[in-house]
Structures are given as C-alpha cells and as structure tokens.
C-alpha cells in the first residue's frame, strides 16, 4: 500500500471516529450540566461530566480537521491526527476498563474497537516504507 492510500485509509477511519465522537459529545452536551444518568451497575461512578462533552466535541472536531489534512497529505494533518488519536485512544482504553469493571460487554467491545481503530490510524500515519532506494549508505 503506498503512502497516499495509507493516509486516505487513515483519514477515512478518523472521520468515522470523529463522527462517533461528535455524536457522543452532542449527547452529553444536550443533557446539559445535569449530565447523563450513570451506567447501569455503576451508579456510584456517576454519569459523564459536562466538560467531558466539551472535550469530546473538541477532539472530534480536531479529528475531522486532521482527517482532512491527512487526505490532502499535509504535515499538519498528520500531526493533528496523531494527537487526536492518541488522546482518543487513551480515553477509549479508560472506557474499556470502566466497561470491564461494570461488566458491560457491548460497551467493552465498542471501546476496544475504538482503541484499536485509533491505534491503527496512528500506525498508518507513522508507517515507514521499506522500499528499495537508489542510494547507498557510505558512512
């Protein structure tokens, strides 16, 4: 797979992730400062806070920008995509842990998929080609 295809695949994955992020952020933001009800079985942990909605929304928008930059093969797009995916992957991993703690299998699967998707995007962006080059290293 050449670089253009890698970047475009990563951009497509990032758009999917960003759209998901926007939807969950809108859901949190729409609930207002009262917040969403806690996950069943983990009532003592409470629902997601309002600032989390703001942050997810900002991350999702950054992801969309990053995806655009990636699609165009721009350096800033790669940087933004890496930052957004790293933060998203860490948060999603935390959600996996939360899902395990409350025993929510669907949430666990969804968040694990999210973690793997973000790692895949990072891997696609950072992947170095091993193609033969005309140069020889002399020293």
């Amino acid at each position, binding site marked *: 797979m050449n*670089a253009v295809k890698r970047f475009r695949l990563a951009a497509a994955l990032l758009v999917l992730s960003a759209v998901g992020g926007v939807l969950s952020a809108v859901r949190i933001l729409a609930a207002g400062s009262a917040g969403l009800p806690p996950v069943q079985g983990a009532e003592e942990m409470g629902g997601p806070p309002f600032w989390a909605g703001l942050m997810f929304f900002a991350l999702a928008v950054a992801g969309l920008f990053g995806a655009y930059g990636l699609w165009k*093969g*721009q*350096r800033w797009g*790669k*940087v933004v995509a*890496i*930052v957004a995916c*790293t*933060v998203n*992957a*860490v948060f999603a*991993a*935390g959600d*996996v*842990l939360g899902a*395990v*703690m*409350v*025993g929510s299998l669907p949430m666990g699967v969804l968040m694990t998929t999210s*973690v793997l998707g973000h*790692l895949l995007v*990072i891997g696609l*962006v*950072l*992947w*170095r*080609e*091993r*193609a*033969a*080059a*005309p*140069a*020889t*290293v*002399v*020293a």
Partner: protein
Amino acid sequence: MSGARPSGDGSDLPPAPQRWDSDALLSGGLLAGLLTGYAALVYIAALIAGTWLMDQPQDAARPPLWLNLSALAAVAATILPVARWLREGVHDIVYAQHDDPYALIGKVNAALQHMVKEQTTLPAVVRMVAADLRLPYVVIETAARGRAARPATNASIDVAIDATRATSPATTPATTPATVAVGRPLAGAPLHRIPITYLDRPMGTLLAGARAAGRSLSPRDQSLLGDIARQLAIALYAAQLTQDVRASRERIVAAREEERRRIRNDLHDGLAPTLSSLQLQLGAIQRLMRDQPDKAERIADDLRTSLQGATSEIRRLVHDLRPPMLDAFGLVGAVRQLYDEEGDIAFDVRAPDPMPALPAAVEVAAYRIAGEAIHNVIRHSGAKRCWVRIDVGGDGSDGSDRSDGTDGIDGVGDLRIEVRDDGTGFPADRPIGVGTVSMMERAAELGGTLVLENVAGAGARVVARLPIVPLRPGTEREPWSP
C-alpha cells in the same frame, strides 16, 4: 567523505539542527505525547488483564502493588523498541518534505533549466535541497571529463577516449571534478551516496548526510534524492554537451583558419615564386628566341621542368584538401592503396559490397584514420598480418545488425573502421604521439569515438566509429563502384 568542503563562508549553510527550533519542539512534543499515550494504554491494558485475573472488577479502581509493578514492567520492557519505531515515524513526518515532495523537484528543475554555469547553479541547488529536506549536509560532486585510462601492467595498454565528450587532450583540456557542499555532516550520521548518471555515463555523485546520528534517511527521502539526481544528471550532461559544442566550434574555426594559413603559405611560398619564375623565363625566351635560339631552347627546357614542379605542387595542395584516391577508387579502394600488397605484412581488407554513399567529411576522416593506423602497423608493430574491417551500422531502428552487436552512435548510423594486427601491441609507456592525436581529432570533429587497445594474446587494435549524418536532399551520391 574526504575532499568535500563547504563552498561558502557559512552564510549559505542550511538550517543547522538547533536544540530548540520549531521542528525539534514539534518532533519532541509528538514523541513525548505518543510515548505517554503508549504508557497509559499499556497500564490500562495491564489493569484490565489484572481485573480479569482477580475476578473482582471493582478492585481495578484500587489496583494492588503487584499489578502496578506488572504494568510498569510491561511498559519498561516494550518502551524502547516502540520509542524507536515512533521516533522514526515522527522524524519522517516532521523533517521529511512529505506535503509536496515533488515541489522540490520542480524547484530544482527550474533552477537547472536556467543553468548558465555549473559553478553558480549547483550551489543554489545544493542549498535548495538542504533547506527543503532539512538535511544538515548535502554535496554534489561532478565527475572529471576527458579521462584516458592507462593500464597498470606492462602487458597491454588500453586508451579509451570518448571523442564525443572528451575530444583530444591536445586541444581541449579535461575538466577537473568539482565539489559543491553546504553544511557539515553530523557526527555519526550516515552519508547517503546517490550516483548521478546519464546514459550510463557517470556525471557525478549526490551526497546527503542523515539528520541524526545512527539513523539513515527514509526510503522516501532517498527516492526523492534519486529523482533529484536524475534531474541533475540531465542538466549536467546538457551543460557538458554545450561546453563540448562550444569547444568544438572553436576548434573548427581554428582548424579552418589554420588550413587557410597553410594554403596561403603554400601558394605564397611555393606556387607564387614558381609562377613568377615561369613569367621571367617566358620573358627571357621571348627576348632570345630570335637572336639566340639555342639559349632560348635551354631556357624552354628549364621552363618545362618548372611547370612540372608547379603541377606537382598543385597536386599536393589538392591532395591535402581531399585525397584524390577517394574519388578515383572510393574509400575501400583508397584504403587498399595505402599498403604494398607485395610487402612483408599480409593485409586483409573487408567492407560492405557495395559500399554505401558516405558524407565527404566521414569518408576523408575514415581514410585519414585508416591511413595513420596502417602506417603505424607497417612501421612500428612488427606484425605479419593486418585486418582492416569497414562496417556501416544502422541506428538500430531499422533492424540492421552488425557482427559486433553495436548500433549507431546516438541514434544515427555510423561508420566503423577497425585496424587490427598481430604484432607486439602498444607499449605500455608509449606517449600519445602526433599521429594518435590527429586520429582522435578527426574522430572528435565528427562526434565519433576512437579506441586504441591491445588485443588479448597478441597485437593491437584501433577502432574508430564515426556517426553518419544523413546527406541533405540533393547531395546524395550513388554508392561507389569502380
């Protein structure tokens, strides 16, 4: 690499790697963020694994010491290879020009298209490459031209002169290799060497120092540098051709003037006094033919001898302009007139039959080169046999094939003349003589090549290849036939 020196006083250096420049900050920040994220992920993964092992999910919020230590060990065990991989990827993103790599090619191409002198353009190109690719050290070394390789052993000599490029050492000095460099190589950073070649001719080398110690440039960087090297090769080749054409024109003008001077001297010093003498003798005959007819008759005899001398002089002049043998016998017949068939050396001349019509310049050059080569065989080789091969090759596009598998020069047909003998060969310490230089010049004037070499086993060989420019309409001649 030895020999490479920065071309300027340091003001033209590319951006040297600074401790706190924006790219370094970006690279370090990205790497730090990625490693932090990686450590967090591993820790969370360890917690999840531990949660399953404990079978008490709620304890994950307060992980025991052994679980924290396990997570720490997992991070410590994997952080180095992951960091190495991440660092290379981040380095590529931050430093390599991935956004529009061929914009650099376009800039280099634009600079090379306006190249007037290599000395002014190449430093600009080197600076451009170093700045755009953020390379600490870039060098362009141009190859020397006009090489004449001498063998190391006494057994044979191989003098290969590419007359299309080098011309003769007597008239055009070979160019010396030039080195244009910017920046300084970083300690421990690999140097990448990209050969600059055009049509299998080495034109130079592009050297690029890696951006960090122990890390080579990415394949994409190397590929881009390879593309730049190809652009450089074309430009350098074109520049050399331009120089060669200019030098060739100067040589042609000089040769024409020299020829005119020689003819003028011959006419002035040889024919003119002879004609004046004839005029005086005729005047004397007029005065004496009535009163002293015997004396007038003697003078008339002298007059006839002088006329024969003048005629010989005119013949010599004409012969120098164009050997009459060529008109009388054609190229092959004229070559056969160059040796004595009853002599000690057995000559074997082979040529296409019928011989196709050749441009006059090619014919004369071929005749002169063959004459000089045969003359050398007779006088110096000690040979018993001599083979002369005349061959006309196509440009390869017409399906024509030659016995040695060679095609024409640069897409046009060529005349190949080979003179080989079974003598002692060229001595290793033989200096290049006037005759050899003359052969080189004749081949070079037509854009051809001349190779002198010893044949493995015994003897020597002279091979001249002269490109045949198609005759202009209206100047075609019939194939020569006796």
